[in-house]
């Protein structure tokens, strides 16, 4: 392969492997957007790695013509961290799900985010365990009936975006599986981010949890139930952008206002503001729209950069073992 990169297309990132998700699975749409974005951002296949754990989403690496490592349940962030330490210049994507990333692997996700390891972490949230046939997951809403909760689940779910913010993530974005444009721009932004980029993707599981997000993803409701946030622009949504988000200082909560009548009260999105991010990530239908796009982006030096800065010459040797063996008192026997 020549040093000057030839332009690649989405097709160049497709593998000959037969894709084995259920027909109609949201993962197909994500895969399609991903390969398109890889081509658009000029990713080099040999410098790109997809690392996954276990679950439906974790089959993703088999279908992308890059390097790929399908590891064990929940541990993809840890494997990917080690890979970044060995080769900090690689583009490393972690593909995980709500069970893989927030249940069995919650600890690793927490630490990859707070360390700000340069990983692009895609969490496919479908609020269910698909591969093991439909048990409720840590993001399932209370009352979810499943084979393991025939009477309905009762434990409170974890909110992935708020979890990431609490963990100290510096890039938090959201997209919907079938939203090519919105998800595409989020993935491109994640690719460009230096540290840990956390992307929650609302992914429909057609078999075990169909339409679980339809309250805000269905065509009829999308306009009123989604807000696509853009840094520096007013937080407006709804038909023609007639609704806006304002901050109610009395309740310390967001409020929905008429964007035309109360233009001055509508907040502008500030992606560097963690407090605003917290308010946006906590919004849920039916009262509020779901915030999509780059909700929070506040760059800091990546873990691997700081790691390498602590060594005299990266991890290149500057001393020989023969010398170091003698860095102590020695004596000669004749």
């Amino acid at each position, binding site marked *: 392969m020549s040093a000057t990169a030839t332009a690649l297309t989405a097709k160049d990132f497709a593998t000959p492997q037969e894709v084995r998700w259920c027909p109609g699975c949201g993962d197909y749409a994500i895969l399609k957007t991903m390969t398109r974005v890889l081509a658009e951002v000029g990713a080099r296949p040999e410098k790109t790695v997809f690392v996954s754990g276990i679950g439906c989403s974790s089959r993703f690496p088999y279908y992308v013509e890059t390097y790929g490592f399908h590891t064990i349940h929940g541990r993809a962030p840890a494997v*990917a961290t*080690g890979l970044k330490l060995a080769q900090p210049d690689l583009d490393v994507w972690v593909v995980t799900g709500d069970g893989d990333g927030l249940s069995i692997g919650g600890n690793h996700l927490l630490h990859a985010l707070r360390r700000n390891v340069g990983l692009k972490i895609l969490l496919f949230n479908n609020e269910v365990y698909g591969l093991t046939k439909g048990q409720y997951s840590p993001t399932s809403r209370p009352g979810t009936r499943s084979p393991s909760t025939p009477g309905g689940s009762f434990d409170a779910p974890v909110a992935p975006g708020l979890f990431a913010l609490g963990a100290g993530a510096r890039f938090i974005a959201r997209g919907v599986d079938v939203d090519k444009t919105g998800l595409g721009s989020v993935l491109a932004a994640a690719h460009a981010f230096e540290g840990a980029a956390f992307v929650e993707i609302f992914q429909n599981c057609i078999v075990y949890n169909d339409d679980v997000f339809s309250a805000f993803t269905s065509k009829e409701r999308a306009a009123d139930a989604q807000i696509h946030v853009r840094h520096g622009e007013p937080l407006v949504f709804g038909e023609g952008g007639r609704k806006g988000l304002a901050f109610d200082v009395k309740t310390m909560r967001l409020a929905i206002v008429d964007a035309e009548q109360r233009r001055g009260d509508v907040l502008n999105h500030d992606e560097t503001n963690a407090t605003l991010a917290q308010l946006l990530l906590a919004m849920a239908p039916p009262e509020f729209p779901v915030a999509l796009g780059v909700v929070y982006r506040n760059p800091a030096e990546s873990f691997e950069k700081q790691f390498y800065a602590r060594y005299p010459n990266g991890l290149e040797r500057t001393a020989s073992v023969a010398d170091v063996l003698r860095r102590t008192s020695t004596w000669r026997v004749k």
Partner: protein
Amino acid sequence: MTDDIDSESIVVRFAGDSGDGVQLMGTQFVAATALAGSDFATFPDYPAEIRAPAGTTFGVSAYQINLGAGPITTAGDAPRVLVAFNPAALKVNLPSIERGALIVLNTDSFTSRGLAKAGYDQDPRKSGALDGYQVVELDIAKLAAEAVASFGLSKSDAGRCKNFWALGLVQWMFGHDTSAVEEWVRVKFASNESIRDANLAALAAGHAYGETAELTAAIPHLRTARAKFPPGEYRGVRGSEALALGIAAAGELAGRSVVFCSYPITPASPLLHRLARMGDLGVGVFQAEDEIAAVCAAIGASYGGAIGVTSSSGPGIALKTEAIGLAINAELPLLVVDSQRGGPSTGLPTKTEQSDLYQAVYGRNADAPLPVVAARSPSDCFETAIEAVRIALRHMTPVFLLTDGYLANAAEPWRIPDMADYAPIETNAARADQPRAAGELPIFDRDPESLGRPWITPGMPGLMHRIGGLEKDIRTGHISYDADNHQAMTQLRADKVAAVAKFIPEQQVDLGADHGDLAVIGWGSTFGALYQAVRAVSRQGGRVSLIHVRYLNPFPPNLAELLSRFERVLVAEMNMGQLATLLRDKLGVQPTQLNKVTGQPFLISEVVAAIQRELQHVQGAQKPSAVNATYGGGR
């Protein structure tokens, strides 16, 4: 009047409160011992509590050294000399020292309060508890304080000089030159002149006290024979340090970076601390969030082309188990260092036990074989680490290296290895000559001898591929649920580990003939005690040999044949019989066993007794010769 001691070797133990500077005194004494041309082995014994109350028995810290003519392979069973800084140190150590031993006693804390804190009802000096011992009573605290009076130190700082005063005295007793310790003090305390000068004065005063007292013969001379070392350049080394250097050396020999990923755990952490200071040797250190993350990050690093190393102790290794299986399946190199400790569960974190041979050899889901090696002595950790990495890279497999807390902390003299003596560590290149269908890649073109695959890593153009924990096609590496393929892959994984035996040296006899009445078999840190025990019995005519095994899975190919040349086989190990099980399982050998799980290393005397018993069986009516109850090692 005291009696001088002349012996081939002498075991000395320094004991005091955690704050008495006993460990520092011990390590400095070792440096002088080395310069005096003695062989030595040491064993530091720290209190389990981080900060135990002063003057109590739980707060006693000790440092034992066995020095003299070699080969000295253990820190010795029972000290011949005890230097005790307080009543608690005397109380804790009196039961383990030799009858008639020389006891140098610092008397300043033998007050009613000091005695009570140690749990003494009456003063042992007056109760008859010390009858039969040679006791030298000195108010070391007062003598040291007088020596440093002119330096204007606070009372507590002046009190801290007593270890140097005692060290000066002990050096005089052994006829050691103090210049090496003086030099160390000058460097160590360069930034604080008054402390530096006070310590030097205390050292000199202790030494001078011995000289002055010589006239009255109040302080005995201690004399050992000089060791006969092969010529060369030497240094002292602890096991954890040798292991760290060995890992760094393996990286240098392979021309790769090392990424060491670990989570703090006793007694494995010293390795983490050592490697954290070896960045200039191409070693990166990552302290992970947990044991699983540590092994996974090491696997990720190996996947990226660095030498991934993880380290832990029994409970932590258990957590890593699933990920080790991933490395087996993905055919990635990985070094897993297991600093064993007493178990099960949390067990005895600070105590030594050969607890994890089963876990290393058998401890994974499904048929998941991997090579296992064990280090036998502090300096051997260096060799074993290089060997382990060599196997990992040649066969593209995780490798277990077993060590323990005893080895990590023990020290011995070490002829500095010449790095030119080590062959470079090779990896398998992609085999271009293999016939290959269009679109197929050389990812799993295994070397026909080692069955190791090429190490193809992200960043290499044109070789993009996917690997993972799912079963894969034996040829292409694509996911495969095919029945025959799984059979073939399982066989391949077994064959690959078996293939290691083709590359390792034949098992040698470490001591004695290659045939005889009894073979004593051991592995790991028991080497020193087994060596001395076999030596002692064979000196008295016993037809016994020592076979100490480094390669535990697979065994060296000649091991079964070698063992067949002995009437009986005794496996001595600090567990309930894990190597014995392995020998029965893999070689069909039927050994007898000597097992000890007290958290303490073998005493030479215990092993001698077991050898005698075994020889009795062989010799039938023939009576074995009597053997002393205790062996100081080398005497």
